[in-house]
């Protein structure tokens, strides 16, 4: 039981608990906070894998920018506690078994793929490769240049859309 393993278990549990809390919480702000918890735990897992840059970007972009905007909007609209109805029988009778089925399917394939070296400790210690930011940006601006530029255009369109919507009011 080394420290890396301990951190892995703690963060894994935190991510799962956060994801459950995100769905089960009735207060919108609590849901948003649970999602932030999931993102931070994932970032720590990336850090454990030696991808410090990806971890930092994960927190900076998702937790530090996008989720802050979510919380901002929730606060601005002053969204109250959500009301629970019993309308959806479909979700209860079809959704639940289907969810459990997919969970088992995923577990089965994961176990079949990685069953031979199934210990989580092996998975953690097998990846001490420290990816440098330089290598990452090299890949991003050569092999993945087209997707990168397309993404930036996508974001630009979103920004333009926001400006158009804002200007229409006045």
């Amino acid at each position, binding site marked *: 039981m080394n420290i890396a393993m301990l951190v892995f278990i703690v963060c894994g549990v935190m991510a799962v608990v956060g994801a459950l809390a995100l769905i089960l919480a009735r207060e919108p702000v609590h849901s948003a*906070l649970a999602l*932030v918890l999931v993102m931070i735990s994932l*970032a720590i897992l990336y850090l454990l894998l030696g991808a*410090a840059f990806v971890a*930092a970007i994960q927190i900076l972009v998702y937790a*530090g*920018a996008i989720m802050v905007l979510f919380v*901002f909007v929730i*606060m601005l609209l002053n969204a109250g506690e959500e009301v629970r109805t019993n309308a959806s029988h479909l979700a209860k009778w079809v959704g639940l078994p289907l969810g459990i089925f997919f969970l088992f399917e995923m577990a089965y394939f994961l176990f079949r793929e990685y069953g031979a070296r199934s210990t989580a400790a092996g998975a953690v210690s097998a990846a001490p490769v420290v990816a*440098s930011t330089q290598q990452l940006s090299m890949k991003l601006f050569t092999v993945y240049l087209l997707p990168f530029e397309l993404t930036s255009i996508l974001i630009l369109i979103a920004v333009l859309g926001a400006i158009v919507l804002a200007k229409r009011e006045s």
Partner: protein
Amino acid sequence: MEFVTQHPVLVVSLIKIAIALFVVMTALAYLTWFERKVVARIQSRWGPYWVGPHGLLQPLADGIKFLFKEDIVPPAADKLSYVLAPFLAMALALSTLALIPIGPATVKILGQRTQLVIAHSNVALILLFAISSIGIYAVVLAGWSSNSKYPLMGGLRSSAQMISYEVSLTLSVVGVLLLAGSFDFYDIVGGQSGRWFHFLPKWHIIPQILGFICYLTAAIAETNRVPFDLPEAETELVAGFHTEYSSFKFAMFFMAEYANMITVSCLATLLFLGGWLSPFPASWHWQLYLPAAGLLLGGLALIAGGLRSVQMNAKIVFPILGIICIGVGYLCTFAAVMPVIQGPFWFMAKVFFLLFFYVWVRGTLPRFRYDQLMSFGWKFLLPLSLINLVLTSLVVVLRMR
């Protein structure tokens, strides 16, 4: 004992954390004293004077007062978020300091090579931004969970302000990154050694003066201080996001604000002011005695000031403090100590100068109006930092040709 030998990194880190925590907490406490004193002098007052000589025990008295006040949680508050917010503010503000090195990488303490940083990372700068970006949640949560009008307004304002100015803050730093070509503080500071024209230190502040101005302005806004302290504008919002907080929870917000001040000053020192590098050429050997000389002069001033004081306790306490200062100064001339303290000395001197600048700004400038704040951030500061970014990239590319 077995644990210590098995985990040397962990134990050394814990020792460093303990020392850093002690130093930072003391610095925080006396930063409040320093700020009150300087602002008081700017306004022709004396500031704290009666708790201890020259009010030197005022921070301690404040701390005790905060501890013993009744801790009120509003009945309509969202308990979890309400309690979480101050802890979040404090924890995040302190954890950013773990990434900041205060001396060169090749320092030897007791014959052991030690790094004067708690957590060294090759993407330290971006990690630091990541941690500090989470800090917005503390303010937002505090504002929302209080379930009260003024805190909510304060929380909304401050989240809008912090998101807006974080963009300029990050962009103003990219220029330095382009020049240094690394996220690692050791590389960034290492790249600033050397001279221009044999006398001008090669600090990033000279080519990046635009970036430095943008950074300082955005940093003041990020730490919610005058003239950008809209989230806690007393005349409009009582105390903004922490209106409903009392006792030690309020103190935690207060300390987090000062810890953030220290963090942004440290960052400015590392990125723009050459970190722990001395402003003098290495051939001037007398500069090695500067820390000792500074402590000696400070000690003498303390003794003289204490003896001239009218307060009886000042007559006793100040000379004793002065003698301690002179003793530490004498210790600094020892061959074993002298090379170690050079880096931290210059680093702290620069950070102290920036902190003084902060207080100076607070004592000088009036508060912005909310719409002025927003248009200043988006229509002036952001374009300015973008221009700086484009110019710097152009120069870097042309130099590479």
